[in-house]
């Protein structure tokens, strides 16, 4: 808190059902990405790199893995004396029973006591399921300069796609004058990224009111932001132009992985001045056998490749047997492709085994195949 006086809350509650079986046992933010990471590594590393010390992670769904993953805050250096990553689930209080989070704003409201305990001046609210690198400290400086009550990060989207997003209409200077959720006729192409900085005192008052309002859906987009605009508060749009990807579907998750094969990929995970931190264990380097053939690949330590890999992302501890072939695919941690098997345009889930000579995926398919069950081999 010393550095920024800003506390971050990550909304990680999503069941992420469009990711199908990948989120059966883990919350969406804990889904694997990029050879060695999990999605939530991105907001957490961004926080650490932006000098934010305390991060709350709000979740109520299958929190065990997410819990034990983020609670080890040391992975992001967030385990010093006054820092920490805390998983916040709904809880029973002296004056209320156990209840689920009713909306994004309610999730924050139910944890006002947690936030108050740190007495921050600013509150940063993030989603747990986007891939991007962003310096929140710069955004905070913008928030202060503008004397804003709330600052919302936005990015320009192609005008013809704008009606799929929450769009911020601003005056000439960047002050938000209107917010439209999926407008039929968008007036601007500035889409909200779901990243907010609030002056905590102002937000706190609004949340307390909102909790009492039986009409409210307790959501930032539906209730809090419109209310603030109605009250003529200072809301400012902070434009972001770097790499950003919502990985909410199998196709977009696959795509975001494939982006890493691009030699000039904008995300650049190799940039040592803004590292993305994650779990790391002392496994051996990747082993590329005499029989291997690799052409365009992104491979993590612990993987063993004996077969052919083309345009694919291979995670920790994957094994690709001699004679196997992996093309245009993503193999999540521990996936095994046996001899003679061929994987094409597929996303293979953790620890899945593709048996001998099995063929999965289709080169011509428009959609990416999710393989979440072992595939039997053929002789």
């Amino acid at each position, binding site marked *: 808190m010393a550095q920024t006086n800003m506390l971050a809350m990550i909304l990680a509650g999503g069941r992420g059902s469009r990711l199908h079986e990948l989120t059966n046992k883990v919350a969406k933010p804990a889904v694997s990405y*990029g*050879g*060695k990471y999990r999605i939530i590594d991105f907001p957490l590393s961004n926080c650490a790199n932006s000098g934010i010390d305390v991060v709350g992670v709000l979740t109520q769904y299958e929190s065990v893995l997410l819990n034990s993953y983020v609670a080890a805050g*040391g992975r992001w250096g967030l385990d010093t004396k006054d820092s920490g990553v805390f998983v916040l689930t709904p809880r029973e209080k002296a004056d209320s029973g156990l209840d689920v989070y009713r909306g994004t704003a309610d999730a924050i409201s139910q944890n006002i006591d947690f936030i108050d305990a740190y007495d921050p001046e600013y509150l940063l609210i993030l989603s747990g399921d986007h891939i991007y690198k962003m310096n929140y400290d710069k955004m905070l400086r913008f928030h202060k300069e503008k004397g804003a009550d709330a600052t919302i990060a936005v990015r320009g989207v192609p005008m013809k796609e704008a009606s799929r997003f929450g769009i911020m209409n601003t005056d000439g200077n960047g002050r938000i004058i209107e917010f439209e959720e999926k407008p039929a006729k968008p007036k601007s192409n500035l889409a909200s990224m779901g990243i907010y900085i609030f002056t905590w005192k102002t937000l706190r008052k609004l949340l307390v009111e909102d909790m009492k309002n039986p009409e409210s859906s307790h959501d930032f987009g539906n209730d809090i932001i419109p209310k603030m605009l109605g009250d003529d508060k200072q809301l400012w749009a902070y434009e972001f132009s770097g790499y950003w990807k919502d990985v909410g579907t199998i196709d977009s998750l696959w795509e975001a992985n494939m982006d*890493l*094969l691009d*030699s000039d990929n904008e995300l650049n*995970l*190799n940039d040592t001045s803004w*590292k*993305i*931190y*994650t779990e*790391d*264990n*002392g*496994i*051996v*380097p*990747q*082993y*590329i*056998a*005499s*029989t*291997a053939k*690799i*052409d*365009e*690949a*992104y*491979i*993590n*330590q612990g993987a*063993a490749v004996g077969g052919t*890999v083309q345009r694919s*992302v*291979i995670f920790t501890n994957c094994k690709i047997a001699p004679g196997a072939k992996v093309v245009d695919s993503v193999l999540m941690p521990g996936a095994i492709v046996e001899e003679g098997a061929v994987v094409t345009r597929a996303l293979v889930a953790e620890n899945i085994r593709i048996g001998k000579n099995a063929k999965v995926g289709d080169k011509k398919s428009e959609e990416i195949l999710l393989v979440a069950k072992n595939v039997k081999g053929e002789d």
Partner: protein
Amino acid sequence: MANKAFGVINSAANYIRVEGLHDYRPIGAFSFLGRFRVIDFPISNFSNSGINRIHVYLNSRPRSIVEHIGSGRHYNINSKRGNLQLLFTQKNGASSIYNTDINAYIENCEQIERMPQDYVIIAPSYMVYKQDFQKLLDEHVESGTDITILYHKVDQAKEYYRACNVVNLNKQKGVVSLERNMGTAKEKNISMDTYVMSKQLFVDLVRKARRESSAYSLADMIALNCDTLDIRGYQHKGYFAPITSLDDYYRANMELLDYATSMEFFKSDWPFYTKTTDACPTQYFHGAQVVNSMICNAGLIEGTVENSIIGRNVHIGKGAIIKNSIILSYADIADGTYIENAVIDKWVKVKNVKKIVSDSVTPAYVKRSDIL
């Protein structure tokens, strides 16, 4: 049985010298397989054996090891109950005849005497092997012997292991003598410089050594007491690599390119811990050709790599060919370079030289941070 012994990790004796690499760091800090440091192996052995009070002796240039070890959390050592304690010996330079393990122990005697454990296990920071020390300790205690020495039976004692000691055993595995390997025969029992004894005997031997000669090592003291003490050998099996020369270092790495050897050594029930650097995965570009190699993370591979070990954050340019070599972290090999049978140290940039090849058995060595 846990916690009856504390661990001691010793640094290399003054006569051990690995050409090149040794100029920049102690052997314990050498990069191993591109990802580990040599000292990760003894520390992990202790940690996995449930021995969590460990003294690590550091001599010259301690910075890299101090940074690498840090608080020891990555070695799974509870920072409250256990302790990885770094002990410095500074009075003499690394190659001084006074730089002996005994003098290091004398300098830190207060710390040794404060340890509450009854036994001590001493292991070297410059050898790579896997050993369950708890099992070794249990056997030592059960046999009632004074000192147990870990040894490894080798059949290349003429070519290698020349800076090591040899253990001569009688039929009952009693140690008859301990002496330098003179390369007189192919088959020898190489001492792994790993000893189990009671803390009391350890302190006694250290004190006695001090009275007899300022240049004595613990191994000397044990050798001198083969007659009077009950000293027994305990045979180690599996991968074993003393890093006592550039040849030995090179060979130790290369041996693990054999997949079966590697899988036998790196097993999930006996993890070797190391410090993470948060390096991203390695990118293979169109045109890259890699076979029979270990590649570390954050690499950018555009050229050809054969039978080699490539460290972290290494760039291999287009058309470059790397054969039978070890390239350490942050090296940058320009397009079209040919490297064979070489050890390239950290931060090297090969820009203008087009060919680095050693024609002898000993690999070529390129110095840290050199620009060629």
